[in-house]
């Protein structure tokens, strides 16, 4: 893409492992996940429910309740700060200021008792000594920036007076009002209908272009990723299976799981034949299978895939392209 390879990443996550200690055993939700986020880049993290994509991001911001969650190892460098080792106070000054978050369900992400303008201003006031009137002005601007008409009047409204799409715009405005370097969007379009989805993606694109914000975009929808993200990271059962620039991932994927996902997208599919589905279901993470977690469902699996002798590891397989499939790594498949 148009970002050079040598550029120092803005956020570098290395070998992040997060587990949940539950009564039924240890659930390894995220295992050895690494990725870099460059300035102005949109990184898509794709995976099914329970693949660990949200937990990855929640770990970064220290939003997981500990216990039961525990970050076992890894580093997450934002500049010089390791987010995983930062003190509570340090994290609080980073949350909402340098890294913001947009949540999945806009209907429940706003406090029903506070005016929208108040909530927008709150984020600003927490992180900067700013006068109330100034904060109010900035709140109106922030609403205008996400395409809400009549913003000066709408800041006086309560959340329930906004539609779902409008609320998600408010959430985006709220997340961006402090001009963070990184925006984590946790399935921000999942709860919205398709037309509104497109508008929200539009706004995110526009804001990225204007502010140069890097975006981590979590989704289970490969279709959304294709037109929106610069780079895609495919997760399954807490592990990264493939990571590549979006075009490469769609045109020449090097992992059977990604390929299977692509064949399951209804829109890309021939209407005459039955829609492809991946057989089986994701593994139980409190008792993960050996080797590659996808092997039991994979049509290209060989005995070596499920053995301990060949540990699954993300390896470069092309320029900017990483795959964890040993058969691709060994050149059996191409």
């Amino acid at each position: 893409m148009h970002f050079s390879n040598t550029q120092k990443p803005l956020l570098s996550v290395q070998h992040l492992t997060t587990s949940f200690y539950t009564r039924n055993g240890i659930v390894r939700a995220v295992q050895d996940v690494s990725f870099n986020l460059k300035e102005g880049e949109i990184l898509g993290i794709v995976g099914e429910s329970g693949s660990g994509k949200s937990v990855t991001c929640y770990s970064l911001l220290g939003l997981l309740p500990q216990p039961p969650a525990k970050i076992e190892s890894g580093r997450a460098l934002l500049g010089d700060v390791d987010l995983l080792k930062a003190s509570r106070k340090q994290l609080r000054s980073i949350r909402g200021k340098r890294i913001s978050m947009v949540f999945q369900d806009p209907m429940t992400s706003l406090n029903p008792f506070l005016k929208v303008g108040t909530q927008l201003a709150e984020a600003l006031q927490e992180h900067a000594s700013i006068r109330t009137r100034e904060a109010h002005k900035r709140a109106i601007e922030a609403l205008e920036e996400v395409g809400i008409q009549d913003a000066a009047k709408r800041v006086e409204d309560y959340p329930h007076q906004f539609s779902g799409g409008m609320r998600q715009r408010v959430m985006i405005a709220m997340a961006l009002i402090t001009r963070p370097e990184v925006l984590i969007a946790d399935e921000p379009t999942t709860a919205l209908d398709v037309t509104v989805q497109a508008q929200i993606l539009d706004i995110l694109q526009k804001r990225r272009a204007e502010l140069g914000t890097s975006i981590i975009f979590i989704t289970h929808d490969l279709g959304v990723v294709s037109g929106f993200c610069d780079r895609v990271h495919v997760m399954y059962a807490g592990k990264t299976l493939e990571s590549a620039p979006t075009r490469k991932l769609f045109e020449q994927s090097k992992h059977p799981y990604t390929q299977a996902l692509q064949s399951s997208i209804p829109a890309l599919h021939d209407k005459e034949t039955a829609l492809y589905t991946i057989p089986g279901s994701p593994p139980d993470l409190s008792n993960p299978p050996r080797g590659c977690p996808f092997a039991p469902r994979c049509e290209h699996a060989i005995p070596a895939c499920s053995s301990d002798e060949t540990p699954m590891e993300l390896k470069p397989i092309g320029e900017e392209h990483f795959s964890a499939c040993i058969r691709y790594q060994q050149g059996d498949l191409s």
Partner: protein
Amino acid sequence: MGALIDNTANEALTLESGTSLWKDAWYHFTRNRLALLGGCIFLVVFLFSFAGPWLSPYSYNDQDLSLVSQPPSKAHWMGTDNLGRDLCTRIMYGGRVSIGVGFAATAVSLLIGVLYGTVSGYAGGKTDALMMRIVDILYALPFTIFVILLMVIFGRNIVLLFLAIGAVEWLTMARIVRGQVLSLKKLEFIEAAVALGLSRNRIILRHLIPNVLGPVIVYATLTVPSAMLLEAVLSFLGLGVQPPMSSWGLLIKDGSEMMEVYPWLLIFPAFFFSVTLFALNFLGDGLRDALDPQSAQD
């Protein structure tokens, strides 16, 4: 295309008249006849008790020994007691104490209960467990013994009475609030507030407490009558308000001792007391229906 959708959406929103949660609650409340009636009756009793004594020609301890234990008459609307005091005036003064105790104790229980419950629920884990066990222990203490102990240590004092009742009522309040906070804590807007980097105090004061206010207000309106009842019980036992001051509980107790001969001494205070309790309960029920969208009838 996008702009078109925006316009229609905005139009639809401006057409729908903006209503805040409170306005909505008020709308539902005013449609509830029983609750409105309860509110009106309570207002009347309240005015009777607090403004009445200014208009009454008697004071609460003016004795007229030539008119002892008189039935209701023109001069004494509700008769006189065995010391020749005007019962109507004594009911007014008693109402001041009873209603005052009800509200003061509720205020105390609100203050302690809401803060305690919110902190406990929000902190979670071991802090929560410890705080709730303390509540359990206090719950297990027999209330009357607790009050008697307080009275013995600090002497009889009306302020102490307020505090003692409040100190008992806050336990339930704390449990209710904690339960609410536990379920609120999982909602996304609290998570969003954390993700915005808001401080713990700010989240508790601005995001949690306003959202528990609905059930808290409802429970508070039900706490008022129960505190009044407690005061009556204590006065009945001789632990509450001391003569010549009066409270409804005390008047009922005095009346019950002579109810065979001078029934009005029991009937009038008991009437005022039960009417007030009914009114407050209807009011509380109405508020609950109005503030809780899940129990809305339509």
